[in-house]
């Protein structure tokens, strides 16, 4: 018949007449027959001939049908070889025995041709389905192995891009658990040339590879811009624009972005779509929330993106905790969620601060118990630390100097339409670091430029009083005023003059910054400093430490510093 291909069928029966009848019926259907006259013979013929279907008499000399069926099953392994018992046994117990021994069906004597033919057809279909299933299973296993292998390689690339930062710094603890090789959570951290640490935790919609793909442009933008000294808001804008362009609608990245200034002990935060991050104040043992105030990244174009940040003052030892919603949504066996309640409970128990991170991990793990982890889990802790504890270990390593700028000068003026939206420091820094040997000084140089620029902008052009920053309320107000005046600035300028000359053993860089502001009484200020009465604003003592000289000129709206540097390679040689 057309719907059943020719099969090889083993017939084992010790009664010759019965065998002949069966053989004739089976052959009539176009199948090939292999004959065995007892159980042992059946097992031997099975391994020699590898038939597709086996018809076994239950009672046979030497080895009965039950024993033969067991051995045939073992020989067949994972291939499905249907075994049909030929029997005139009629009691239930014997029939059950047939099935227990590995039989798939019975055929009762006297043989009925129509029934036997139907059974062979049915079992052939089953056999074919099983064979197809095995092939598909093997394909799936093969594909899965291949996929995991590919993902493992891709992950090495991904990790190099995403985790090349300073997550290993002594003031950072982190845990990122992937449900798959790849993770929808992305965690990046890096130091700006100024020594400020920037940390971004992102949670992309979905899981695994599709979610992790968005992490690549995010991480490379982040690292590229942080190392060059771009401001948080610029980096946010760039990442948002990139994600908005490349991600399909409906895929986006909830993120918290923090910047730590270890010298001033301040922290700037932007949260778009992640659950509240926590600030743990060591002194008061209290928790303060950094609440999401913005849309996630990649949802709206930059024209609608809001980049206003929250500013916090921290003490050394204060800790910030970031997490994706995987922790909040961790479920125990009965389906309850860990939630913010679970997190707050950990803090409420007031463990020693250095154990909080581990306590949170324990609490979540214990809570989940035997339950299933159904989201990526990420937890990061960043401590406010003294600057020298952080900067030294993880400063980015720059390639060795090559010939470049030696003697040059540069004048550069920034006007309101520029400083409202654009941070000129990365540009200036990239010019300066073209000088061979100065690249390894970019941290100090960035700090000097940044301090001078922000003094010129904030106290000069925007006329802000740094005395405001001495109280917590004033601190917040200062930043509000700054944003407001910056928005409204229509006049004013900041002029940079840089000049450099190289010597064999190093060089000398002069930086002059002039602003359009009213200046200040710098003679009095310097006298106060000398008497130890000076307030700490303007970062001037710091610059004085780094530079050979610092002088205010004119009415105080003009400042000039000389930075002298020694070529480290020459020193080493």
């Amino acid at each position, binding site marked *: 018949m057309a719907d059943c291909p020719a099969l090889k069928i083993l017939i084992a029966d010790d009664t010759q007449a019965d065998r002949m009848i069966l053989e004739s019926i089976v052959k009539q259907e176009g199948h090939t027959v292999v004959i065995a006259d007892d159980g042992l013979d059946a097992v031997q013929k099975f391994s020699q001939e590898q038939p597709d279907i086996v018809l076994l008499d239950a009672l046979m000399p030497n080895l009965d049908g039950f024993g033969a069926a067991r051995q045939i099953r073992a020989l067949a392994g994972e291939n499905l070889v249907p075994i049909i018992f030929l029997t005139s046994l009629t009691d239930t117990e014997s029939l059950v025995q047939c099935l227990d021994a590995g039989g798939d069906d019975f055929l009762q004597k006297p043989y009925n041709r129509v029934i036997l033919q139907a059974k062979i057809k049915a079992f052939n279909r089953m056999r074919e389905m099983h064979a197809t299933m095995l092939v598909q299973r093997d394909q799936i296993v093969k594909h899965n192995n291949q996929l995991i292998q590919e993902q493992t390689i891709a992950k090495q690339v991904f990790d190099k891009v995403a985790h090349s930062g300073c997550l290993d710094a002594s003031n950072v603890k982190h845990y990122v658990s992937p449900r798959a090789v790849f993770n929808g959570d992305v965690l990046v951290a890096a130091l700006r040339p100024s020594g400020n640490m920037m940390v971004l935790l992102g*949670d992309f*919609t*979905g899981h695994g590879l599709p979610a992790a793909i968005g992490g690549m442009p995010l991480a490379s933008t982040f690292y590229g811009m942080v190392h060059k000294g771009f401001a948080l808001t610029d980096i946010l804008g760039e990442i948002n624009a990139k994600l908005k362009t490349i991600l399909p*609608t*409906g*895929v*986006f990245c*909830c993120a918290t972005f923090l910047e730590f200034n270890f010298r001033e002990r301040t922290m700037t935060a932007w949260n*778009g*779509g*992640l*659950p509240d991050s926590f600030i743990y104040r060591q002194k008061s043992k209290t928790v303060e929330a950094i609440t*999401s*105030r*913005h*849309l*996630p990244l990649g*949802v*709206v174009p930059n024209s609608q993106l809001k980049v206003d940040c929250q500013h916090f003052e921290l003490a050394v030892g204060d800790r910030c905790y970031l997490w994706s*919603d995987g922790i909040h949504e961790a479920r125990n066996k009965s389906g309850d969620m860990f939630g913010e309640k679970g997190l707050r409970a950990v803090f409420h128990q007031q463990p020693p601060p250095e154990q909080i991170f581990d306590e949170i991990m324990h609490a979540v793990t214990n809570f989940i118990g035997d339950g299933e982890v159904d989201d990526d889990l990420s937890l990061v802790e960043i401590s406010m630390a003294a600057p020298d504890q952080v900067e030294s270990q993880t400063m980015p390593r720059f390639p060795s100097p090559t010939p470049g700028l030696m003697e040059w000068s540069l004048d550069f003026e920034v006007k309101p339409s520029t400083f409202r939206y654009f941070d000129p420091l990365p540009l200036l820094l990239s010019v300066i670091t073209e000088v061979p040997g100065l690249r390894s000084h970019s941290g100090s140089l960035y700090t000097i430029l940044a301090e001078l620029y922000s003094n010129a902008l904030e106290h000069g052009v925007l006329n802000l009083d740094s005395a405001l920053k001495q109280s917590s309320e004033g601190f917040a107000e200062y930043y509000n005023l700054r944003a407001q005046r910056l928005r409204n600035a229509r006049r004013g300028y900041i002029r940079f003059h840089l000049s450099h000359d190289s010597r064999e053993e190093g060089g000398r860089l002069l930086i002059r910054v002039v602003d359009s502001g009213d200046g200040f009484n710098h003679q009095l200020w310097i006298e106060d400093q000398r008497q130890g009465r000076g307030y700490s604003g303007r970062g001037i003592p710091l610059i004085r430490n780094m530079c050979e000289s610092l002088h205010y000129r004119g009415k105080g709206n003009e400042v000039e510093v000389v930075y002298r540097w020694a070529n480290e390679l020459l020193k080493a040689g």
Partner: protein
Amino acid sequence: MAINSTVSSDGAELTISVEGRFDFSAHQDFRRSYESLDTPPRIYRVDMRETTYLDSSALGMLLLLRDHAGGDTSAVKIVNCNPDVKKILTISNFEQLFTVQ
């Protein structure tokens, strides 16, 4: 999870009700509920009265609906949110993109 949709008698308003967990498994049904209409409604209402949970892929589906309804000029209302659902919408600041009631 079940998605039901009804159009007001004048055809101006489409209400999509989401029952149970609103997550990736609702993707097909949710899209079909607004893409299958011959005449586009003026107002879209997503009724969350029976919604127990919302995940980030559901937020993504809402963004797709917003795009479909005209992006910045769309009128998409999310109504009858329970506190849990509301909290997720608030954390994501989706109030900036949708009318949440």
